[in-house]
């Protein structure tokens, strides 16, 4: 199969997956026992307002009509408006998604740089004390729930030492011209540091362990012997040859893991009061603001689906040996 038809096929699959996720979500919200409108209408509304909302959502119409309308709206990324604030869901997403992305990306960059370097070293110095301690630390980091580590960090550095803010993304009362103006302030970095560090500590284990086993596999190959016989320095063999080869599986793993990380942003954002998409989704669920819950969920799912797709493409691009079966 050629590369082009591989991409086309994967794109079709992508569309089908999107459709399936959306459909399941649609029916989940509407086929629950009890009054279906209860899920899209706030209880505090007056009966007139209630009826109006129900009609504006077309909830008085048959299910299949609603479903078609839902699909139509989903294509234009129109998820309705919040019951809580009446803000269009699209706007809610645009407010919170960048915050999540900034947090996740900065944590990821740190985690992957550290994880890769430590993975190379542990793979190289196999059987050493350093390797054992690092691997056990990495496993421990992956076993402790991020929200728990977050709590401990907040308690130690926030409540006790007072060096980090307890919550949020910036000091109260500050306004900025734009998103970009905001994220390059010291205040912002001060708020970002703790949640990003906690996440980086957690995410570091994955690339570390993959890199380590990938290194071991590469180091057992004949060309490493040839490199040593060529009289190359240890560092040249370790980084230029072994690590460069071992890196391939990491890059695709990183793309996939980033997708799940954005999806899993829920907890860390809740602990640190970070105004991100995950926390917004939880809040929406808790206050039964279903249009927002649905919209934010779709975005989280879309991140995963798209990054899985990107990982597939990257793999073919980075490894010249890949063929498309």
């Amino acid at each position, binding site marked *: 199969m050629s590369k082009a038809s591989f991409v086309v096929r994967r794109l079709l699959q992508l569309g089908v997956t999107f459709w399936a996720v959306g459909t399941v979500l649609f029916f989940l919200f509407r086929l629950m026992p009890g009054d279906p409108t209860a899920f899209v209408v706030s209880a505090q509304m007056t009966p007139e307002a209630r009826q109006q909302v129900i009609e504006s959502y077309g909830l008085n119409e048959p299910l299949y009509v609603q479903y078609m309308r839902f699909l139509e709206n989903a294509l234009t990324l129109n998820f309705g408006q919040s019951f809580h604030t009446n803000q269009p869901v699209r706007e809610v997403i645009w407010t919170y998604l960048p915050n999540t992305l900034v947090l996740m990306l900065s944590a990821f960059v740190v985690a992957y740089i550290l994880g890769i370097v430590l993975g190379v070293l542990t793979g190289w110095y196999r059987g050493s004390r350093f390797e054992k301690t690092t691997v056990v630390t990495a496993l421990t980091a992956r076993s402790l729930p991020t929200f728990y580590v977050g709590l401990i960090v907040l308690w130690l550095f926030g409540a006790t030492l007072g060096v980090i803010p307890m919550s949020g993304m910036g000091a109260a009362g500050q306004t900025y011209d734009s998103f970009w103006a905001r994220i390059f302030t010291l205040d912002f970095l001060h708020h970002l540091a703790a949640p990003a560090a906690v996440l980086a500590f957690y995410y570091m284990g994955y690339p570390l362990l993959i890199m380590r086993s990938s290194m071991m596999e590469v180091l057992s190959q004949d060309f490493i012997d040839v490199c040593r016989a060529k009289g190359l320095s240890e560092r040249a063999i370790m980084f230029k040859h072994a690590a460069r080869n071992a890196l391939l599986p990491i890059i695709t793993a990183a793309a996939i893991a980033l997708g799940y990380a954005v999806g899993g942003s829920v907890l860390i954002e809740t602990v640190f009061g970070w105004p991100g998409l995950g926390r917004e989704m939880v809040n929406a669920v808790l206050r039964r603001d279903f249009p927002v819950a649905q919209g934010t*969920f779709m975005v989280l*799912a879309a991140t995963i689906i798209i990054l899985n797709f990107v990982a597939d493409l990257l793999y073919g691009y980075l490894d010249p040996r890949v063929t498309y079966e």
Partner: protein
Amino acid sequence: MATQDKPSIFADIDDGDVDQEDESVDRWRRNLRLWRETLTEQWRMLTDDLMVRLAMITIAFFMAVAVFAPFIAPHGPLTRQYEGDAGIIIVDWAEPSFMSAESEYLLGTTAEGFDIFSQLVYGSRAALLVGLVAAVFTAGIGTLVGLTAGYYGGKIDDTLMRIVDFLYGMPLLPTVIILVALLGPSLWNILLAIILLQWRSTARVIRSQALSLRERPFVKAAQVAGASDWHIISRHLAPNVLPLSFLYGAFAIAWAILAEAGVSFIGLGDPNTVSWGTMLQSSRAYSALDFGAWWWFIPPGICIGLVVISGFLIGRGYEEITNPELR
């Protein structure tokens, strides 16, 4: 190349046998013996590793605590404690007994007046229940689907794998949160939601294993000899993928406990059950953090960490046995 040609560890079972009723008892006995030998051998290799041994002891410890919780815990997990004879409800927390001479509570009480040590002990029940049930179902469903898809191939495979792809598109925690919000917060609903998503990875791995097993001589021989599909799947494929199922089961314990803790922490936990996650949630709700009541929120996290890392370590240990290249 080596892995493909590697003889199955159960190759002895698969000598192209075709069922014959009178022989079946004997065969079962022989199979049973082989199984026992293999498992004994794997158990021996597994317990050779110090870390795995420690992990097993940890899990066994928490299992014992869970089983004997009523005998270990001095109080009920959701029984309010009263101070002295006056019958006054503790409104503030009591400090642990090793910090304050007046306190009779080993790890103090929560702001609601619950004994933390007792909650911790009962919390192990929720954690292990979630972990073990999720592991059994995740591995079971995943193996069944994986084997079916891999063995039959074609349309069946396509359909099942598209479902798996779809599940891979669902973010774990948000999905569980939404499902629990819709179904109602109970431990069983949390479990159901976790299982609904988690079998996806087992299914994918088992399927690729089944795909390669399907081409092996002993399967071909059984097919030619006219063995039924069910016979081939249950006797020839299943024994060969079972180590992988165990492996994914071990990892599922860890992931499920983490997921339950996360959902409970967010506030969608079962209000009638105490889990380590709900303990963390209530400690946060009562701002234990700001008041420095560390004895409230430190212990549950340590328990979660211990059980989860044990699951990971056993899984990794088992992985090294079944996949010698990792060693």
